[in-house]
């Protein structure tokens, strides 16, 4: 007998949660956002059911503003493992030209992410959506349950959550109420990278440092050439060695200065970083507590 490491335990817990979802729900779906957390999620799902296929489809909420590398990676990955992928876009809002510069990040997310997500979940009549959110990401997530109850509008009420003890999860709902399940609840950003390294999980190349041409605005490195970046064209660009810590929509995702070109280097970098992951994302800077507001409305 050997003693299990922290990663072994987190993996065991993640797989357990995946299987609970498959066992407890009629129509589960797994959110796949193509980022590093999604990559780990997908890996755990494969582990949970192999040699059987993953017993639920993957759902990508596409805002149309994702990095081209993400679309490429997504399609290649799904092809490779033979998973079923559903892509959902809020076509009406996209046709209306929804963008964060005119609407503000909050409202843009509201249309392209939250609304799209709620529509997609309703259209599929999914009773459970698995997400890759981690409790350490943001303050309001610290109290999130592993099985998070959502009312019939997909909304989250922090005061109306079920107590969760041991590893016993209560997924019973009166439809159209639903559950959001979070197998990575107890993982930190460091754990994610340690695990990706250990398991050699493929991730989008944007996570690795390389020379990129970026708009440098104060501390922020903003990608050039994204759909909505027209309003930024006066700003000066620079070629810098950088990488993305977190991947979202191009107009709202910043990069960080970094020389980490390998998984080992990223893991090393994680032990030194002084700034939280979310700080590199523009989206959370709107207002204090904005994540909580979005979550209440149905965001992941």
């Amino acid at each position, binding site marked *: 007998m050997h003693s299990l490491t922290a990663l072994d335990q987190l993996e065991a817990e993640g797989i357990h949660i995946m299987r609970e979802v498959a066992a407890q729900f009629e129509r589960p779906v797994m959110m796949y956002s193509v980022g590093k957390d999604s990559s780990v999620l997908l890996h755990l799902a494969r582990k949970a059911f192999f*040699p059987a296929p993953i017993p639920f489809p993957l759902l990508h909420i596409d805002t149309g503003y994702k990095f081209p590398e993400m679309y490429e990676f997504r399609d290649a990955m799904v092809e490779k493992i033979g998973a079923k992928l559903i892509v959902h876009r809020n076509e009406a809002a996209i046709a209306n030209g929804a963008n964060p510069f005119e609407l503000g990040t909050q409202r843009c997310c509201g249309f392209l992410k939250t609304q799209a997500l709620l529509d997609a979940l309703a259209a599929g009549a999914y009773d459970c959506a698995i997400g890759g959110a981690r409790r350490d990401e943001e303050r309001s997530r610290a109290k999130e349950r592993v099985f998070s109850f959502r009312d019939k509008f997909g909304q989250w009420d922090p005061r109306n959550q079920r107590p969760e003890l041991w*590893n016993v999860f209560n997924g019973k709902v009166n439809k159209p109420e639903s559950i959001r399940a979070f197998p990575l609840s107890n993982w930190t950003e460091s754990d994610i990278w340690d695990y990706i390294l250990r398991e050699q999980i493929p991730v989008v190349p944007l996570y690795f440092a390389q020379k990129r041409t970026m708009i440098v605005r104060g501390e922020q490195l903003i990608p050039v050439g994204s759909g909505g970046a027209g309003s930024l064209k006066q700003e000066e660009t620079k070629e810098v060695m950088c990488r993305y810590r977190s991947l979202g929509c191009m107009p709202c995702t910043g990069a960080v200065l970094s020389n980490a070109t390998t998984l080992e280097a990223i893991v090393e970098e994680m032990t030194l970083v002084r700034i939280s992951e979310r700080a590199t994302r523009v989206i959370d800077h709107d207002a204090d507590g904005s994540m909580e507001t979005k979550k209440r409305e149905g965001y992941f």
Partner: protein
Amino acid sequence: MSSASANSSPTKDPELVRFSTAGSVDDGKSTLIGRLLFDSGNVYDDHLAALEKSSKGNGQSESTVKGSALSLALLTDGLKAEREQGITIDVAYRYFATNKRRFILADAPGHEQYTRNMATAASTAQVTIILVDAEKGVLNQTRRHAFIAALMGVPRLLVAINKMDLVGYDQKRFEAVRDQFLEFAPKLGIKDLRFIPVSARDGDNIVTASAHMPWHTGSTVMDYLETIYVKGDANLVDFRFPVQYVLRPDAKYRGFTGQIASGMIRPGEEVVVLPSMRKSKVRSIDVFDGAELKHLPEAQPPMSVTLTLEDEIDISRGDMLARPGNVPEIKSQFDALVVWMNDVPMTTTKPYLMRHTTRDTKALINSVAYKIDVNTLGRLPGGILNLNEIGRVSFTTTHSVFLDSYERNRATGSFILIHPETFHTVAAGMVIDRHSKEESLDPSQRNLHTEVSLVTQSEREVRSGRKARTLWLTGLSGSGKSSIARALERKLFEDGVQIYRLDGDNLRHGLNKDLGFSQKDRGENIRRVAEVAKLFNDAGVTVVCAFISPFERDRQQAREIIGTERFVEVFMNTPLEVCEKRDPHGLYRKARSGEIAEFTGVNSPYEAPKMPEISIDTGHLTIEQAVEVLVKAI
């Protein structure tokens, strides 16, 4: 993130330690947690900056120097609404790492009403840290926190005696508080108990040793967390594998997935399947390594694996694999300590859904033997449990469950109760080992083992959809017992309840026609009625009895025969004058004139019930209203 001991290089593959914290409001719990995080380099700069901004925004005057007490407390703060009220109300999880270990902290607030949250936080903890204010010493709440940690099976308790700066870092004060704690702690049976004097605000003995308390030669809080021996926490003896999900990708492969709850397993070892008791051998322990299926030489808790067996046996979710010589108890009747977690109080009339490991069943609550006063740790009489109450409860389940005592096995000794309609998680239960603890105080429990029928009580009750009751209407002649009993029977019948009425009409003329009205005969009459009512109840039929039953002793006997959890004593509280005035059959007149001997109220006494479940004043209620009261009550 950087770590406490920046000089030593990080342990490769660190262990995980889960702990919870508890403390009364203002004991400094948030400050202590903030200190742990901050002094170990686990706070991001931008988080700290945001907190400093928001403490200013709150109009707080306290300084916002990095690491000041206020910001530290805010670090552990959660949701917006709660922040506005200045309180935290739920369990919040924190994650941090040092060079030695990875930590998961479940932080529960210290308010009176949050037993529920504390129990939740402690359910997975390997250590609980309890904060005590050195000035205030041990409070009721301290006792409660320690009790809950013990109840939830947390193997170690660290008592951090805080605000030592306010007592001049006085060793005597520390020892006095420690001794207060030791007065009650031994009876909680906590295996490992430690005390550390700290000043959370200034960081003394949190991560760095205190210069103010050289007399404390023990470890700091962080040292303690980094060095406790947690490897021994897992039960490696009793192999238990609750089957979670069955994999059948093709006709050849059949894999049983699950998380190993306890014990070790290797290929070739014999296993037995509960409840079918079929035996087989483990063919392989499978995991996926990202490229292909890998077979493991052994597996241990809490690994999530897939087992394949040598023989084709029908196994599904909710079954359990164990070793033939070491199986859990297979039970449909058992006792547990229960923490009630919902605003809606417990009911004993409808079954709850019980989830025990991966197994679901319906569970009826038979009775609550006693409640535990979490402040004094004394016992209170049973009844029903309300939010945040803890008690010893006896259950009957539709399907058998595979139980170990919680003391021995946290995974197979625990369960949750789910409300059958709202699906809320309403309670958490910890199975009591009948052999090691005293027998239930509930006398109805003693009969459970005499059951010989192949159809269990719970099965009947589940079929009839309710727990059958006996409504025992007692009162003077003319108090309205019979009219109300008849109306009630009609009403419940229409509501679809299986109901039968017993009164003098249908018993005195047949079964009891050999009996008169002497005290002795009245007693025998009531005894027989009670036995009949019990049989009806056993068959799932609710009974309404209408008998004068004037003697307390006889009614008490009926209660014992029928079972106190089924027996509902209803007192027809109508004054003698009213009854006599009504005199529907002219009996009072006859009694007064001496034509009837031993007539209750006239020449034989009526002992009014001292503590009836329901009391009905028929002088003021119509029959319909009285019926409504009774229908509501059951």
